């Protein structure tokens, strides 16, 4: 079983989650209000009042077979809007 961690802008979360569901993942979890730093520089919550939003952290535990579908779904979004993804091993409790 695999664990996928995605970090992306708050406002693309809906799109990414749709892609994850379509890829056949059994579930996912989303944490909003994530700040941080990446290639696009620092992201804070200070502009939240303007509707800009900060980052979100999406976690998916799924079978290895699903990973490829998720990767190809989020890759174009990451290319356009930024965002990063990581993968590691896990098993069910």
């Amino acid at each position, binding site marked *: 079983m695999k664990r996928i961690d995605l970090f992306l802008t708050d406002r693309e979360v809906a799109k990414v989650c749709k892609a994850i569901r379509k890829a056949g993942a059994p579930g996912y979890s989303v944490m909003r209000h994530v700040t941080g730093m990446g290639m696009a520089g620092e992201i804070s919550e200070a*502009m939240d009042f*303007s*509707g800009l939003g900060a980052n979100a952290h999406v976690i998916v535990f799924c079978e290895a077979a699903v990973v490829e579908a998720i990767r190809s779904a989020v890759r174009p979004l990451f*290319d356009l809007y930024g965002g990063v993804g990581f993968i590691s091993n896990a098993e069910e409790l």
Partner: protein
Amino acid sequence: MDSSLVLQNLVSAPILFFFLGIIGVLVGSDLEIPAPLPKLFSLYLLLAIGFKGGLELAHSGLGAQVLITIGAAVLMSLLVPISSYLFLRTRIDSYNAAAMAASYGSISAVTFITAQSFLNVLHVSFDGFMVAALALMESPAIVVGVLLAKLGSSSSRSGASPAATGLPWREVLQEAFLNGSVFLLIGSLVIGYLVTSFSPAGLEKMDPFTEKLFYGALCFFLLDMGIVAAQRLQDLRRAGAFLIGFALVAPLLHALLGLGIARLIGLNQGDSLLFMVLCASASYIAVPAAMRMTVPQANPSLYISAALGLTFPFNVVVGIPLYMALVQRFVPVL
């Protein structure tokens, strides 16, 4: 220029709280207004300003003067981004130039509100329909910005990137017109209009919320804006002298343009100031969120920092009294 206007503006509570926020950041205080509290105040201010605008629009009616003013406002929100783009393009890339242009073509509701408070203190009257102008100036600049980004990038490249192939009209219009803050402002305007026209008994019950509380809530929000603006100011070093210069000179030029038009269409003193402020101000609410989605290649820290870190403080602290001095000199008392 009448220096008492500047002083009058500087010692008003909203401006002083704005300074307090700035000073807090500069001296390293850990004062912060955590999310989503600033959002509460920004939603509240949009709702209240829209509602009050609708109320006064219902009182004044939709006469020729109203339509002409609104038409002029929309025209400005098309003209300003195009001219800004052409100028900015001489030094920065198309995406960032387009996003900046959209910001400066659009408006800042808080600057507008601060100008209204300033007029109230001076006992200079203004019309409710100016809020309609405000509401209608938000969106066109966004559409223009996206178009410019698209045109600019397809002319400079072979246009093969996914963003460059065909304009996602649906998404652009959605971001421009259905953007949360635009939607709330226009919706509240319509509600204010409807309630005033058909159920005026309700107005008195809204008054404590939309009218009485307004000034204090503005102070609270400006405290946060001071904090955020000061943080942004520190980002501006990276933006370079060209953008810093633009952020300080553009509002002046746009205000003068606005003064000319205000004179042309015969606005009174109060409305003239508000019109100038609409032209001079740059958006950091609706536009960044919209640009982030439609022109993601542009760097938000550039256009937000310019609009919020420089143009906003400049307008609020120096601009408003300066524009008022010009108005008093060039616009006859009706």
